[in-house]
């Protein structure tokens, strides 16, 4: 028999379920993600730092955990919430169960709760802080609510998960320096696939140190949390502009925009899942994208920058991509590397390649 566990939210809502994964208690910001496949990628995405992730798809664990589909080596999330956890996976690559991985990494999970009710609550109120109680522990609701309320979302998220030292993933092609704000492995897979010579550097690496690596292009990675918390990054980027083509993704996209003076804001309901349609304004084509972000560029702040909006979310119209042609920089809010999610936008890495090829030739920018 599984032990009882509760999810207690700051607004006082309590869900009773069963514990799996680690037995310990945890606190975090509760958010939901709507992908129907790719839970392994979702829970290992560093952008989920500190979050308690609710899976809207009700049956999780079906395909187990395999060697290949991690998006980071350590898991950054604080907890996971599912309707039904399957501890008997069936897939030829499965090497262990989800529960075993969570145990290994010290992350608690809860199953058996009405995740749709929880999702609707979060849609209504936005992300809520919540506590997952220790397995088998009796519920002291008011205490737990108090703890959830008192919890402060960490501001040093990027600092905690960015690599501490530079490392390389050598290739025969162009030199790409990746600034790691919470890098997903998917980014590296796309770069390696193109045989780029990749060097990953910590988020706080100086402009000079980066340029000393003589990059053909610079990739600003995705990462968790509020870009304003990432001290100095926008400033560094500002100085990098013009020295090499830059491609920003996710948090990297927000930081790039900020370096041009754009502002960002927190969304009521962030985007998290694999079915977000984004319109590429340059081609007119709509692509399905993978997303996980709760901050977005502020519409009004873009006008005063030299940036052009290149992508918009079809459904809520928010900015999903920008560029500056002469500066040879462009960025997108979504994840062109997918993992998990659709690969519709993976051609952006080719575009990055083209921009690097074109070097200073502006007319080829959009090729």
């Amino acid at each position: 028999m599984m032990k009882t566990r509760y999810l207690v939210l700051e607004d006082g809502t309590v869900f009773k379920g069963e514990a799996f994964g680690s037995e310990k208690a945890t606190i975090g910001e509760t958010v939901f993600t709507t992908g129907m496949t790719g839970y392994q990628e979702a829970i290992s995405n560093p952008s989920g730092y500190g979050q308690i992730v609710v899976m809207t798809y009700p049956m999780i664990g079906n395909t187990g955990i395999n060697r290949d589909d991690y998006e980071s080596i350590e898991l950054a999330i604080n907890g996971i919430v599912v309707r039904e956890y399957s501890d008997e996976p069936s897939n030829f690559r499965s090497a262990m169960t989800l529960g075993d991985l969570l145990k290994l990494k010290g992350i608690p999970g809860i199953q058996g709760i009405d995740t749709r009710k929880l999702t609707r609550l979060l849609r209504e109120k936005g992300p809520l802080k919540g506590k997952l109680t220790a397995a088998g522990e009796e519920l002291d609701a008011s205490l737990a609510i108090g703890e959830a309320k008192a919890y402060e979302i960490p501001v040093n998220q990027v600092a905690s998960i960015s690599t501490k030292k530079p490392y390389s993933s050598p290739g025969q092609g162009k030199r790409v320096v990746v600034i790691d704000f919470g890098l997903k492995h998917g980014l590296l897979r796309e770069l390696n696939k193109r045989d780029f010579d990749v060097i990953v550097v910590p988020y706080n690496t100086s402009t000079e140190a980066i340029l000393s690596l003589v990059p053909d292009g610079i990739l600003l990675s995705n990462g968790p949390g509020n870009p304003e918390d990432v001290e100095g990054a926008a400033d560094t980027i500002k100085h990098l502009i013009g020295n090499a083509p830059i491609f920003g993704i996710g948090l990297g996209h927000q930081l790039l925009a900020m370096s041009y003076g754009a502002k960002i804001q927190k969304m009521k309901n962030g985007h998290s899942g694999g079915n977000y349609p984004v319109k590429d304004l340059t081609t007119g084509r709509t692509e399905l994208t993978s997303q996980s972000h709760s901050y977005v560029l502020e519409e009004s702040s873009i006008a005063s920058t030299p940036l052009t909006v290149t992508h918009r979310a079809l459904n809520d119209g928010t900015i999903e991509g920008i560029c500056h042609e002469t500066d040879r920089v462009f960025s997108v809010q979504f994840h062109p590397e997918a993992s998990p999610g659709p690969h519709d936008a993976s051609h952006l890495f080719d575009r990055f390649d083209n921009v690097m090829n074109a070097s200073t030739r502006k007319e080829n920018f959009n090729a």
Partner: protein
Amino acid sequence: MPKRQDIQTILVIGSGPIVIGQAAEFDYAGTQACLSLKEEGYRVILINSNPATIMTDTEIADKVYIEPITLDFVSRIIRKERPDALLPTLGGQTGLNMAIELQESGILDELGIEILGTKLDAIHKAEDRDLFRTLMNELGEPVPESEIVHNLQEAQAFVKEIGYPVIVRPAFTLGGTGGGICYNDQDLEEIVTSGLKYSPVTQCLLEKSIAGYKEIEYEVMRDSADNAIVVCNMENVDPVGIHTGDSIVVAPCQTMTDRENQMLRNVSLKIIRALKIEGGCNVQLALDPHSFNYYIIEVNPRVSRSSALASKATGYPIAKLAAKIAVGLTLDEMKNPVTGSTYACFEPTIDYIVSKIPRWAFDKFESAKRNLGTQMKATGEVMAIGRTFEESILKAVRSLETGQFGLSLKHADELTDEWIEKRIRRAGDERLFFIGEALRRGVTIETIHDWSQIDLFFLRKLEKIVAMERELQADPFNVDVLYKAKRMGFSDVTVAALWNKEQREVYDFRKENGIIPVYKKVDTCAGEYESDTPYFYGTYEEENESVKSDKKSVVVLGSGPIRIGQGVEFDYATVHSVWAIQQAGYEAIIINNNPETVSTDFSISDKLYFEPLTIEDVMHIIDLEQPEGVIVQFGGQTAINLADALEERGVNIIGTSLEDIDRAENRDKFEKALREIGIPQPLGKTAVSVEEAVVIANEIGYPVLVRPSYVLGGRAMEIVYREEELLHYMEHAVEASPAHPVLIDRYLTGTEIEVDAICDGVNVLIPGIMEHIERAGVHSGDSIAVYPPQNLSASMVETIVDYTKRLAIGLNIKGLLNIQFVISEGQVYVIEVNPRSSRTVPFLSKITNLPMANIATKAILGQSITEQGYKTGLAQAPAGVYVKVPVFSFAKLRRVDITLGPEMKSTGEVMGKDITLEKALYKGLVAAGMQIKEYGSVLMTVSDKDKEEMVDLAERFIKIGYRILATEGTAKVLEAAGMNVKTVGKIGAEGPTLLDVIQKGEAQLVINTLTKGKQPERDGFRIRRESVENGIPCLTSIDTADAMLRVIESMSFQTDHMPKQQVVL
């Protein structure tokens, strides 16, 4: 891109009659599409031969033609209507094939008619095996090793190369007609030969078998701007080897990681982009369970059964949007109709799991081969929604209405382990339940996996269900265990059986302990966006999203899966009833579980509950909604069968009361009622034992008609001529007992008459009387019905009208009733009264322009017929003659005897209308797929009782130039009458036999009437099956033959020689 302004009139081709492989899903798709085009302001011309559909209602298109879907008739309509464009991808394979024929005939080019949506060359590339393989090679996408063959020798050569097993897929056929898996030379010869015959281009694909791979489907859409999306993916629980229409299917896929999912998604999108599909498309793939290897199985470049399922599974209306794409709109400019706030260019994400289980007709066709392969055999399907696989599969099981509520088998203790293994190894309709039994006997899931190749994931889930059975059994009335079981989808019936209690006790215990379901919304987005779709499913969770409104409501029960005897006609009536309820000012709530139908389109009713139609599931909804009442008379026997239990639970049945339903359906009560009303019926009595049956039969005299009470579609009904046949019947077909009485009636030969009427309690409206071509004894659903009757005297009509009125009033009917009469020796007898909507309601509604289900519903709700503005009595017949011709799916069901009898066998119907009976019959027969040749040879082999009548028919055939081939007995009789007949050998005779005649295509028509004895080994059976296998019309009733002859006669000129002058000397 904005919609096209340069076209105004669009021709839509429907899918014709319901046959196995092409069912109600095209009514759903076609209706959606027509309405969607009208919504955009286009003028829609529709052609479809099927009168039983919503699609052929005059509100659905601007002009509706119920005419045969043949080159000849469609061309006539095109010349008359001059449409600007043609939309061919919404009428299934029939619509597509018609469009190709039209294109090839040159008429489209001649008149400058454009084909909208997916272009024909793309259709060719997808459907022509050779072109498809070439395209896949160009794209670098793998297809199983295969070879197109045009004859048996080529097939044998291919097998020599790659070995068995191989799959045979005939080109351009629906539901895989004529296909199958071959394990040896004999299979190969049989299947390839029949496959080549069924393929209109005499082409089969032989393919290396990849049985055991996962079978995965992607439902994709693309627009003219090259936006492409996946609406839904689905995983077949039964791996490759079983037609997807015959497989248990779940959505979304359960055993793929995101990598496999994206890999196959990319492939699917790549293919539809390469094909330049504009609209919906289905891609079927096979995925190796042990690697990333995959193969493309096939692509359907049109909406399909799978797209209907995907639409219902996600809420995303594929056909509706496909129609808009066809006129130039793009996905990124259309709103998602479910949320109303987001765009259509997105991929639904769901937070539940959907299971589909096919519904087969094997309960009706006892002799049919029950094993499943690449040729589809199911007539319909059910879908269920749950939050776990266990919940959704168990809900689907009890939606089937096969008497099963869980994973158990009837008489399981009598089955040997070997038998169970066999039935799991060789897939059949009951495999799921054999697996349940195997698990109960302790067979491991690994062993079952070895036997079946079903993924361990699904087997584990089934194992959990079986484990829960044990847990329940061990711990009756434990609240926690019961809650867990209910969350897993267990029905009260199963729980009660395990606890040895009554269902009601389980229900009461649950209610006391607050274990009741909540209803969740189907919203395409897993709750991420707000949505006001009124589409719900029940589950055991915390939050209920279905809020009862302030408006008074009425619940309509649907008719469940399509099966023989309960087809799309009942969905038609259900939908009309819903509309009438809304017009009368109530909220209309529908409960149904068939994903193919119009009634389960959430935009039809105010609220749709996609739930099983069992008393438990229905009562939960009634408890929540507190409706004014429940209407049961439109949902066929499915709904009628629930009336009893509903009333017992205090639910108000609106319309004819339960007591009166029972008076019509219970034999003894009916007899009593008829005596009171003073209407004659054939002598008959009820037997509750074998002995009693024998006594009764002797009393009333043979032949007698025997059947169990409470049946639909004449299940297990037979005419028996002798006592030994009666004994055989009583032993094998029914179990007579006081709870299950058997009806024994005098069998009267005579003209059968059918009437549908509406009664408001005071007055009776009779839209029409129909006369059957086939004499009584052939099930009304299998007879050709003619309207108005051609051979009834005025006084006979008067009697029928009088009887109808007296029956309606006397039985206290409120709403619809259907009566069958037989006229024998000038006397009118009542055979049966059905206090509900019938199969002929749509046919008559369309002809008479009286919306019968609508009028009936309003009458039920208290508005009298006259208040509604209709006259009472027999309605004035419109000009013209209308026939309803049944359509059969015998080609799909091996070993089924095609003889017409009291048991219904047809799957669908068509309508023929024209100014004379012969012309109407011609259209009806042609629309039903019969080829009528003006000359040729007719092969006759009839039973002794029919030989006399046959003489007349033969003479007429000869007169119009037909040659007569006959077996010895028949030939002798004809020769004695002075006719020139070619005698052919009987089966087993030396030299060429009649089987050779049939196989070589030397006869254009076969007339074979039944010699008594139903064993399939009988020669007659072989003759009939051989005709079906060879696509030669085989008539088993003298009356049908007569009708066909009249048609041929009317097509021919008379060529009588001049009378010889005789000079009197």
